[in-house]
C-alpha cells in the first residue's frame, strides 16, 4: 500500500476567494504595480511566459538534480545560445544532456481563442475605468478606454534531450499530469493565458554509428492575446456642468380644436313632405356612391342643369358643380331621404 508523500506543511487559513470577490482579485492582478490600465502583453511577454511555464510548471528532477532549461528562445544569433547553456556544457562546449529547450515557431497566427474571435470589428474602444484627477484647482475625471485584445496563436515545441528512458518518463509524467484537463495556464502580467498540449513526437537519434540520445518534442499551443498600451485612450470626462432652465411666464390659451377631416363621409339629402327637388353647389371634387334611400321610388340627377341620369349609383362631382336631385316619392305625404357616400378626390 502506498504511503502519501505529499505532506502539506502549511494549512491555508484564509479560504480562497470565489465568484465576484475572485473576479475583483483577478482585476487587481492586472492593475498591480502600475497605472489603472492593464500593462501591455505583446509577443515577447507571451514568450517569456512560456519559458517560465516550462521552467516552473514542467520542472523535472532526475537523480536528485533539476534538469536545466535553456531560458531563452534560440534565435538567429548564435552567440546567445552560449549565454544560457554555458553551465551545462561538455568538454566540446556542446550542451550536455539532459536539458530542456523551447523552440517557438516564428509565425504567429491570428488566434483561435473563442472568447475573442472576430467579435468586435474596427478596434472599437471600450470603457475600462474612470480615474479621478486633480489639476490643483478643481476635481475631474479621466475616462480610460481600451480596444478588444487581438487573439494570437503561438506554437511552441518543448524539446527534452536526454539519454535515459527514465528521464524521458519523468518529464512525460509531468506534462501529462499538468495537461490532464487538456489545458494549463501561464500567468503573464496578471493575466492567465491558456496553453494546450497538441502533440508529442519523438526525434531521437538512435543510429548505430552516431552518438545516441533521446529527443522528445512536446508541441504546445498558446492561445494568447495582444494588448498594446499604444492603443489605450485616456479622455477627460465632464468636470463642470451648467444647467439652464427656461420657464414660460404668460398663460397660454386653450388649444383650438378642429373637426376631423376625413376623405370619406356620408352625404345625406333630406326631402320634407311635399319637396321633390334639391340643389347645391359643391366646392370640392368627389365621387358619390349610392348608399340607401327612404320613401323614394326614383330620382333624376342634374349637374349644372344638364340631365346626368336616373337612379344613379355613382355620381362624379367636380368642384363648382351645381348638383340637382329630383325625386319621385313613394308616399308624397311623408319625408324622403337619399344617402350617398362621398369620397374626396
Amino acid at each position, binding site marked *: 500500500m502506498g504511503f502519501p508523500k505529499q505532506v502539506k506543511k502549511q494549512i491555508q487559513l484564509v479560504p480562497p476567494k470565489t465568484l465576484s470577490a475572485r473576479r475583483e482579485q483577478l482585476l487587481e492582478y492586472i492593475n498591480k504595480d502600475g497605472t489603472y490600465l492593464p500593462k501591455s502583453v505583446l509577443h515577447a511577454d507571451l514568450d517569456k511566459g512560456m519559458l517560465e511555464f516550462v521552467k516552473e510548471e514542467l520542472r523535472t528532477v532526475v537523480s536528485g538534480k533539476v534538469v536545466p532549461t535553456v531560458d531563452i528562445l534560440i534565435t538567429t544569433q548564435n552567440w546567445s*545560445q552560449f549565454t544560457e547553456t554555458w553551465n551545462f556544457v561538455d568538454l*566540446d562546449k556542446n550542451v550536455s544532456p539532459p536539458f530542456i529547450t523551447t523552440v517557438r515557431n516564428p509565425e504567429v497566427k491570428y488566434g483561435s481563442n473563442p472568447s475573442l474571435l472576430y467579435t468586435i470589428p474596427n478596434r472599437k474602444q471600450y470603457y475600462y475605468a474612470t480615474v479621478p484627477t486633480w489639476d490643483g484647482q478643481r476635481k475631474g475625471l479621466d475616462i480610460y478606454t481600451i480596444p478588444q485584445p487581438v487573439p494570437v496563436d503561438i506554437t511552441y515545441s518543448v524539446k527534452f*534531450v536526454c539519454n535515459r*528512458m*527514465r528521464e524521458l518518463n519523468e518529464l512525460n509524467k509531468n506534462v501529462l499530469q499538468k495537461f490532464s484537463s487538456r489545458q494549463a495556464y501561464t500567468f503573464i502580467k496578471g493575466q492567465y493565458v491558456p496553453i494546450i498540449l497538441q502533440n508529442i513526437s519523438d526525434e531521437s537519434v538512435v543510429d548505430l*554509428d*552516431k552518438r545516441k540520445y533521446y529527443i522528445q*518534442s512536446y508541441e504546445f499551443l498558446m492561445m494568447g492575446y495582444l494588448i498594446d498600451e499604444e492603443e489605450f485612450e485616456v479622455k477627460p470626462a465632464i468636470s463642470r456642468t451648467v444647467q439652464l432652465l427656461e420657464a414660460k411666464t404668460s398663460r397660454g390659451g386653450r388649444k383650438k380644436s378642429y373637426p376631423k377631416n376625413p376623405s370619406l363621409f356620408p352625404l345625406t339629402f333630406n326631402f320634407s313632405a311635399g319637396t321633390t327637388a334639391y340643389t347645391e353647389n359643391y366646392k370640392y371634387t368627389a365621387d358619390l356612391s349610392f348608399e340607401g334611400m327612404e320613401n323614394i321610388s326614383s330620382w333624376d340627377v342634374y349637374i349644372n342643369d344638364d340631365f346626368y341620369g336616373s337612379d344613379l349609383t355613382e355620381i362624379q362631382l367636380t368642384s363648382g358643380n351645381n348638383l340637382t336631385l329630383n325625386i319621385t316619392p313613394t308616399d308624397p305625404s311623408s319625408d324622403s331621404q337619399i344617402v350617398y357616400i362621398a369620397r374626396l378626390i
Partner: protein
Amino acid sequence: MEKKVPITRLGKFFGGEDFTLDIDMGEEWLEGDMNFTFVLYKVDKYKTKTDDVYGEALSGGIQYLPPIELKGMVQIVAPTNQRLGNSKIEQSEPGNLKVSIYQRTLDDLQTDINFGDYIGYYETESRVRYYSVSDDGRVNSDNKHTYGGYKPFYRTIIATPVTSNEFNGV
C-alpha cells in the same frame, strides 16, 4: 580436444612463418613507430547497477574492469556541425573513433573489445574523450582483414563519442 586444421592457402609463396613475420614487423611499426595508445574500459556487467526495466545505468554508475592500455591505429573522423534534432541547439558533434588493432595484441593481453565497451583516447595531456564501441569488428572474415584471404589478423573497431553523464572514465 579442439580440432585444428592446417591452413595451406597461398602455400606456394606464403605460409605461417611469413604471416607471423609480417605481423611482427607490423606491430613494430605500429607500437614502436606510431605508438597510438588508447585505454579500454570494459564494463563490469556484474557490478554495474542497472535499471530493472530499461537496463540503463545512472549517471556515473557504470562500473568497469581494470582499464587496459592498448596500441592500435587510431583515426578520428572529422566533426560535423549540426543541430540536436529539430531543436535550435547547435553543436559540433565530434567524429567517431576508428581503431585498427592486431588480434594478436588482444590475445596476448587475454582481453577482447566488445560492443558497448568504452574507449578513452587522450587528445592532449589533460583532455580525454570517451567513446562507446558501436562496432567491435568481431567479424573479420573479409579479404582486407585476412591478409588477402590467409587468416584474420586484425580488427577494426568503430566507437561513437559519449557524453560525460553517460561515462566519464576515472
